[in-house]
């Protein structure tokens, strides 16, 4: 008999990176790497679970920017080109490593991996990853949910309810346009929550969302079941809290499974390890070292020379870690169910890109976890949060505390001395757009003006993405992140000026529509305060 529930939630998101104004663009490889290493392996995992009739439930949040990029013909075409280059490189590697059998075996493994990706993506799924996931949703095993339009960090957009509302509504609308139904669940970008947000979510038809542990634990009223039962926030919306114990087992830099010595080392990539002359055709501009996806070493351990990767050993370790994960959850459920007045639900949310991309063996681990959890003798049942709410249990009423899952738990990663310059600019654009849309209330606009207004909303949404302040703070591709914010705001300024002066150049407008080809159904008239 099941004593409790486990809800594993994967949040899949990448910022909108789409540059038809270049023949190729390095940052588009973020998507390509994630397709090969994360999304396709996850789909393959779901296919195997279906073939084997495994009874599981998994939740997947798909961001509107990611859905848009998956369906973009230019990016689909470029991804196929990316795979062809990888296949070409791996053939060279098989020749180069002919006197190093262990390395050559790995090169052959990568050839099989890339060929498999090409075959799955192009031939089996016809380049449509959303449809591949939707197929599994229709079996009733996979729950699909959404997030804000461009993953805007809502607590820092909250100087304008219109901005928050627009992020949420556009996110939900994009999901509905893609899948044809209203999502019940909503992933708050970076788990960024502030009291009152539940009302906006309710207005968008959302039934539940997630907060970090302290969002529940520091709720207005003490949560009597901790994070192991949702809080009813009013307006028919429930908040689920992240379980710190299961998070720690996967996320922790010190203790987390992905840091195990047997797993593949993400940072050991031939793009950085081999002679520049040899690797030049496969890296950025032939001179800047970048990841190629071919990695020959395992984590090994700190301060030790990197040892060669042994796939069988790594997969066996993933299965061992899966058994440990389930065992820990069983202990947890046994202890919690004895003391709680509701059946406990353990909510374990992770970034989807951790699985396969950062943690190469992650999909294998997840598959083993879902298979183990499906056994009827372990006292745990995997569910989605919607399944739990459908039990109609009496939930405690309380409002969560403002929180995020970022470093230090609040807004400081997205607002600090490195990135605080962003906010005056995006708040100003928001105010200007609201004023403009307000001025047009009751007036008729022509088709060209309507296109320009809609494109202005797209530009502002793209500038609001949480990814850019995050990247600026983390210090990775800082110049690109800065440029994306300033470029989108410049495009907004251009459109705003053109609309105000009624001098819209259709050619320029069309060029912007080509470059920022997202949210086709957006309606600028939604960008106004809700009356009353």
């Amino acid at each position, binding site marked *: 008999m099941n004593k409790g529930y486990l809800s594993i939630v994967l949040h899949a998101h990448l910022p909108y990176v789409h540059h038809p*104004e270049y023949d190729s663009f390095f940052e588009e490889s973020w998507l390509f790497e994630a397709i090969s290493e994360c999304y396709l392996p996850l789909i393959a995992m779901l296919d195997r679970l279906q073939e084997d009739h495994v009874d599981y439930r998994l939740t997947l949040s798909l961001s509107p920017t990611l859905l848009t990029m998956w369906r973009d013909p230019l990016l689909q075409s470029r991804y196929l080109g990316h795979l062809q280059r990888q296949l070409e490189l791996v053939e060279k590697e098989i020749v180069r490593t002919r006197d190093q059998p262990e390395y050559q075996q790995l090169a052959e493994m990568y050839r099989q991996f890339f060929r498999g990706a090409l075959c799955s993506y192009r031939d089996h799924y016809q380049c449509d990853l959303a449809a591949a996931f939707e197929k599994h949703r229709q079996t009733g095993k996979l729950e699909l949910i959404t997030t804000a339009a461009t993953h805007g960090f809502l607590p820092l957009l909250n100087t304008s309810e219109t901005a928050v509302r627009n992020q949420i509504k556009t996110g939900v609308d994009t999901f509905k346009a893609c899948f044809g139904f209203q999502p019940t669940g909503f992933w708050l970008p970076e788990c960024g929550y502030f009291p009152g947000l539940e009302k906006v979510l309710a207005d968008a038809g959302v039934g539940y969302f997630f907060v970090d542990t302290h969002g529940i634990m520091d709720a207005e009223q003490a949560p009597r079941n*901790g994070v192991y039962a949702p809080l009813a926030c009013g307006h028919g919306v429930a908040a689920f809290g992240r379980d710190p114990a299961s998070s720690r087992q996967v996320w922790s830099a010190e203790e987390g499974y992905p840091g195990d010595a047997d797993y593949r080392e993400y940072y050991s990539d031939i793009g950085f390890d081999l002679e520049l002359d040899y690797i030049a055709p496969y890296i950025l501009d032939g001179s800047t070292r970048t990841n190629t996806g071919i990695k020959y070493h395992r984590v090994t351990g700190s301060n030790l020379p990197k040892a060669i990767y042994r796939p069988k050993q790594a997969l066996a370790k993933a299965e061992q870690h899966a058994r440990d994960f389930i065992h820990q959850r069983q202990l947890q459920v046994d202890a919690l169910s004895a003391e709680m007045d509701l059946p406990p639900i353990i909510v374990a949310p992770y970034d989807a890109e951790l699985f396969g991309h950062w943690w190469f063996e992650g999909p294998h681990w997840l598959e083993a976890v879902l298979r183990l959890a499906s056994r009827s003798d372990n006292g745990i049942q995997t569910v989605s949060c919607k399944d739990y709410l459908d039990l109609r249990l009496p939930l405690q009423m309380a409002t969560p505390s403002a929180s995020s899952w970022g470093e230090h738990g609040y807004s400081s990663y997205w607002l600090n001395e490195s990135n605080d310059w962003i906010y005056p600019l995006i708040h100003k654009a928001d105010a200007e757009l609201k004023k403009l849309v307000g001025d047009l209330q009751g007036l008729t606009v022509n088709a060209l003006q309507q296109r320009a207004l809609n494109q202005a909303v797209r530009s502002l949404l793209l500038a609001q993405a949480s990814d850019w302040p995050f990247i600026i703070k983390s210090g990775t591709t800082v110049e690109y992140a800065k440029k994306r914010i300033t470029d989108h705001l410049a495009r907004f300024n251009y459109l705003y000026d053109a609309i105000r002066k009624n001098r819209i150049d259709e050619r320029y407008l069309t060029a912007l529509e080509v470059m920022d080809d997202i949210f086709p159904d957006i309606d600028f008239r939604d960008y106004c305060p809700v009356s009353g």
Partner: protein
Amino acid sequence: MAFLQSEPRNRIELSGQEMLAISHAINNEFAPRFTKHNTVCAGSMTFSVQELLAISQEISREYAPRTAENSTRLVLLPVDPHRLHAYWHLAENSLNPSPKLAEEDQLTLRIFKQADRPLPETANVAEQAPHWFDIPIDKAQSRQEVIVPADTGFADAKFSAAIGESRGEQGFTVLAYSNSTDIPSPRLYRDDAGLSGALAQFIMPAMSASSPRGKAAPVEQNKDSR
């Protein structure tokens, strides 16, 4: 000679590597592409990649975002339970132009624990506000991190701010009021939550300040130590 009448010929022998090379060459040259000859079609319009780039660059250059605006504005944002962030823009004509007063005036950011009633629109509101504190501001500044005093009843509150010119005993001339904002509760996993043993066992140990937060990928964090 008709095609069907042609002499059958022996098939050319190709090695696996040669077939692969040919396959790659064909894929590279003839794979379906969204852009044809470096052009992008949108409705009836066609753009070259270079033209798109030129338009993008021109707009980025000519319409670069600027904070400057005609109006005066002050915005307050929540950072964490102990910090707020304020930024402002003061229109050029908003500062006191009198040279006599200018030397004595101190631009000041006044943070209010928000009053139950709206702040009046007039100057000299300080006495009427239940709780406030001042931060002297340099006129060249446009933003300020605000540390919320922990021991003066400011915790767990709604805040608003005003920016203005302070003239010592003579009062405070407000140039702009901010929005109001809440900061999160400073309680960190309060001990009085009344959690039972099992709940506390799984929640409290992971709640230390060093607990991982989701966004920091473990592999990323480990980069240097590996």
